[in-house]
């Protein structure tokens, strides 16, 4: 981005769209920073809504609904999708017996779901899944919608690549298993990242009173392979911990009304059933005094709220230590 625009935190960069127009890319961290200190007040309404939802056992997930192969709609959690693209059919090439497309100066393999044929003219919609270095495109027939739904898989999948069926927007929808398709593009997708699918069974309890941060962090954790349950305050977090559901690690905000993160950690430490639970603090207030206070309260790690890679690293460290100790 131009040096004349870099002072604007709200944007992480700009890019050229397929039709030649330039767009600015929003940086959610910048927006969060701008909301910053005054955020809690303005989030109250959102929080009320969120706590309303939180009363129901299941939580809402943004789902991308699309059609591929069959007439039945399919869905994938939006948090896992990096980008949606429409690629001109004539840009799709065949190399080494596989469909590829030149995408952002790299060759991106295209993976077809069963029954999907690649368009020969016009544009081809694809879902792009990417990590730091590589990207793969999942070829679909049509992108239908993005919906917020409780993701409740009612019938387990019979077919490879389908997690199962869920009711989404009143229609039976197949939820696809992204983990099945990624290795079809790069066989070592998971092993290379030292992120085996079995790690996906690690579950995280995320406690934050701000709906904004819950919405920002939960998809990040999910995308990193964790099961996430969110709680809107420390009390709700405690009930979740004591409900019998097992968690591998707790990630909690510090600045919360009623019971703050330090007190929450002290209560967990004092509970004989939970005393070994790793707890990671995420806070917008990082000072040596706060970190020291966190250590006394029993936190294993203390991460800045905007430091998403730091949070993932801390989570990995804590969950792996547990796995070794077990």
């Amino acid at each position, binding site marked *: 981005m*131009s*040096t*004349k*625009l870099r*002072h*604007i935190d*709200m*944007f992480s960069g*700009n890019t*050229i769209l397929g039709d*030649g*127009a*330039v*767009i*600015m890319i929003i940086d959610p961290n910048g927006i969060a920073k701008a909301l910053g200190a005054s955020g809690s007040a303005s989030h109250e309404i959102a929080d009320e809504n969120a706590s309303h939802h939180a009363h129901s056992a299941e939580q809402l997930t943004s789902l991308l609904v699309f059609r591929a192969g069959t007439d039945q709609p399919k869905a994938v959690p939006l948090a896992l999708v990096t980008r949606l693209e429409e690629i001109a059919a004539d840009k799709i090439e065949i190399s080494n017996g596989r469909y590829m497309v030149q995408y952002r100066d790299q060759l991106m393999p295209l993976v077809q779901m069963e029954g999907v044929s690649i368009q020969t003219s016009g544009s081809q919609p694809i879902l792009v899944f990417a990590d730091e270095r590589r990207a793969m495109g999942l070829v679909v027939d049509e992108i239908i919608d993005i919906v917020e739904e409780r993701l409740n898989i009612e019938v387990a999948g019979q077919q490879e690549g389908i997690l199962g069926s869920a009711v989404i927007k009143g229609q039976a929808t197949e939820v696809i298993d992204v983990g099945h398709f990624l290795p079809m593009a790069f066989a070592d997708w998971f092993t290379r990242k030292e992120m085996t699918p079995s790690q996906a069974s690690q579950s995280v309890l995320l406690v934050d009173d701000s709906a904004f941060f819950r919405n920002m962090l939960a998809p990040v954790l999910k995308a990193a392979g964790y099961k996430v349950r969110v709680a809107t305050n420390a009390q709700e977090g405690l009930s979740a911990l004591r409900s019998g559901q097992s968690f591998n690690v707790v990630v909690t905000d510090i600045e919360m009304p009623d019971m703050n993160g330090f007190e929450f950690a002290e209560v967990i430490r004092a509970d004989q059933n939970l005393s070994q639970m790793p707890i990671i603090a995420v806070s917008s207030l990082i000072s040596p005094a706060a970190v020291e206070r966190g250590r006394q309260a029993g936190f294993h790690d203390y991460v800045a709220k905007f430091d998403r890679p730091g949070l993932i690293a801390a989570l990995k460290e804590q969950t792996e230590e547990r796995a070794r100790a077990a």
Partner: protein
Amino acid sequence: MSSKSQSSEGLVAEYVTAVIGGQLFGLPISRVQDVFMPERLTRVPLSSGEIAGVLNLRGRIVTVVDMRARLGLPKAEDGKLPMAVGVDLRGESYGLLIDTIGEVLRLPDEGREENPVNLDPRMAKFAGGVHRLDGQLMVVLDIDRVLELLPPKTALAA
């Protein structure tokens, strides 16, 4: 770097002329990459008022500077579409919005005069001297100074 060439009259510099708010300006031709009609300009929220937006010029993202705003002049009211002069600064592309583009003039360096004391201070900031032409004054635009755009003060304070 300026395109000065030796001729019988001594050092000569070439300028692309442009009119902004009724005033004739000369841009050193060595700094001018191209002249184009700005199309599909994307406004950038929160940027300073002097930045008109960004656009795609043959695959490069160009930051477009509104020269009227930069010179503290009111917006054009005649409804005519502005033109843009493409310039580079440290590897980045900029487009300067002007009212109309003129011709290329070859002017002897010795004809260039210091900024007159009565030059509008808004122009004097960016002027690298003047040339007296037939019946009008051409202000030599110092592109580097024009592009010394600082973030708005509010952003610095934040």
